[in-house]
């Protein structure tokens, strides 16, 4: 990769990305347009997160990349290779060791600190897209905080289905002002965004937007007093490590066809398994303390 610049992008591009990221941090939840570049992975495959990460990362950083909670997911492997080859940083699968974590659709189970940054890959940054297809009109709605249609959308769900049907991409009110899309994380992860110590950065490459939730910011999922927000729950724990406090995925045993639940955060699950075998392992605390 030596024929390419450090961190793949040219320096002017990285500077622009940093300026836009700073603006995003200054206006929590506001989507800052940026001149998104084509990357050597396809649009929709994490190019927004990738650009943000590449503009931030430097020697001394330790990188972790996860996709659906897994370090070993094929696309995570591909992105990790690309970032580490072009920026010569060390990589890890351990949430506690990483300084920058790039993620698709999950927040790790172990609580992150103010020394770490979590970069989200965002497919569709515009939370109003469900109720308004036009970008020009959505931007007006944000500017005027005209969120009535989104709220009515939730009301109509309750009337028809007795609950809000949104499962991921759950709308959150950031810092009492903008409603934004926390990326397609499950509801389970949404409360982790509220008053966290970590800087959360969101990059949408195809849609050319960067936004941020800075540390210690209020992040409140939209809800009604009599229909409070709730998260996914399970009747049993992880088949592998026994955890009952993590986000689980259903999967079928490819031999027996039986259905099992497994942790989606594979790194955390691995540590819990080691702990179960009484092996020495450092496990971080959960987001609730």
């Amino acid at each position, binding site marked *: 990769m030596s024929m390419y610049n450090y961190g793949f992008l040219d320096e002017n591009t990285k500077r622009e990305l940093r300026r836009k990221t700073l603006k995003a941090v200054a206006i929590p939840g506001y989507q800052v347009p940026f001149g998104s570049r084509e990357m050597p992975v396809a649009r929709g495959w994490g190019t927004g997160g990738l650009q943000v990460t590449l503009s931030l990362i430097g020697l001394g950083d330790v990188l972790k990349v996860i996709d659906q909670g897994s370090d070993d997911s094929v696309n995570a492997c591909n992105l990790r290779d690309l970032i580490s080859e072009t920026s010569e940083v060390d990589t890890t699968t351990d949430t506690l060791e990483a300084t920058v974590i790039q993620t698709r659709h999950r927040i790790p189970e172990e609580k992150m600190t103010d020394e770490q940054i979590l970069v989200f890959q965002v497919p569709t940054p515009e939370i109003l897209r469900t109720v308004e297809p036009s970008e020009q009109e959505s931007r007006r709605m944000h*500017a*005027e905080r005209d969120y009535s249609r989104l*709220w*009515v959308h939730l*009301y109509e769900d*309750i*009337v028809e289905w007795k609950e809000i049907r949104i499962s991921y991409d759950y709308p959150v009110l950031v810092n009492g002002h903008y409603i934004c899309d926390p990326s397609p994380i499950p509801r389970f992860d949404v409360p982790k965004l509220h008053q966290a110590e970590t800087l959360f950065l969101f990059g949408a490459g195809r849609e050319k937007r960067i936004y941020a939730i800075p540390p210690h910011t209020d992040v409140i999922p939209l809800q*009604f*007093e*009599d229909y409070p927000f709730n998260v996914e729950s399970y009747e049993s724990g992880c088949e592998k490590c026994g955890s009952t406090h993590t986000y689980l995925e259903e999967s079928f045993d490819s031999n027996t066809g039986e259905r099992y639940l497994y942790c989606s955060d594979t790194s955390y699950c691995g540590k819990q398994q080691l702990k179960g075998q009484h092996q020495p392992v450092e496990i971080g605390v959960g987001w609730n303390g």
Partner: protein
Amino acid sequence: MDNRVSIRNVSKIYGKGCDSCIELTGPEHGRNRCPKCGTIVACADIGFDVYPGEVLGIVGESGSGKSTLVKTLYFDEAPTTGEFYLQDFEEGLSNVYGLSSLQKRYIRNHLMGMVYQNPHLGLRLDYSAGGNIAEKLLMADWNHVGDIRERAKELLTKTEIPIERMDDKPKYFSGGMQQRVQISKALANNPPLLLLDEVTTGLDVSVQASVLDLIRQIGRELGISMIVVSHDFSVIRMLTNRTIVMKNGRIVEQGLTDQIMEDPQHAYTQLLINSLI
């Protein structure tokens, strides 16, 4: 200020305009279109007050500028010049035309209701009737679905919509029912000012009568100030206390409705009244 609404010097022109636009248009010329530059003067030099609980009528034929005027009051269109004071907003000291769109949205949601001639404009026909009312309430920070539904039921009962239709979409409703839902929505936050633009035009005569009855009853019960825009003097006679007559974008006559009906001064007003069946 004891009047609820004050309008001063409102004009709305479409086009680039010239020095002669105002001079060469108006009722004495019988036109809105400036012969020099082709600019349309939809309305000019409009000023009036509305008092608490009062129902003001604005009457005129199509092209008189009355609908444009009421659209500027609901911020659907920005006027070219003019001032608009609302007693319930900063004690009537701020010209609300000059506010940011965020503040205007606040006023629309909290201090005004609008009923359009065409239900498409006032309702989301794809959301339920209750959802339409909820939209207004949610914007005024209601956050309890049960409370919202109670309030919606109350409003629909008042406007004589069967409660069991609350969760149906207005696109399946008759024209008269759609207007009733619009009225419910406009009243949701007990606004001090209600704007009604040709609300019965296009409805069957029997339906018209019941919708007018409803509006009259609401005015009496809730003490809301209303501005009723119509081309039809029979609507104006039935609903309003005071009337403004508009022609070619100007006010040609104003006064107590009864008085105008009895003794119209302007030839145009006489024509309108004489054409009443």
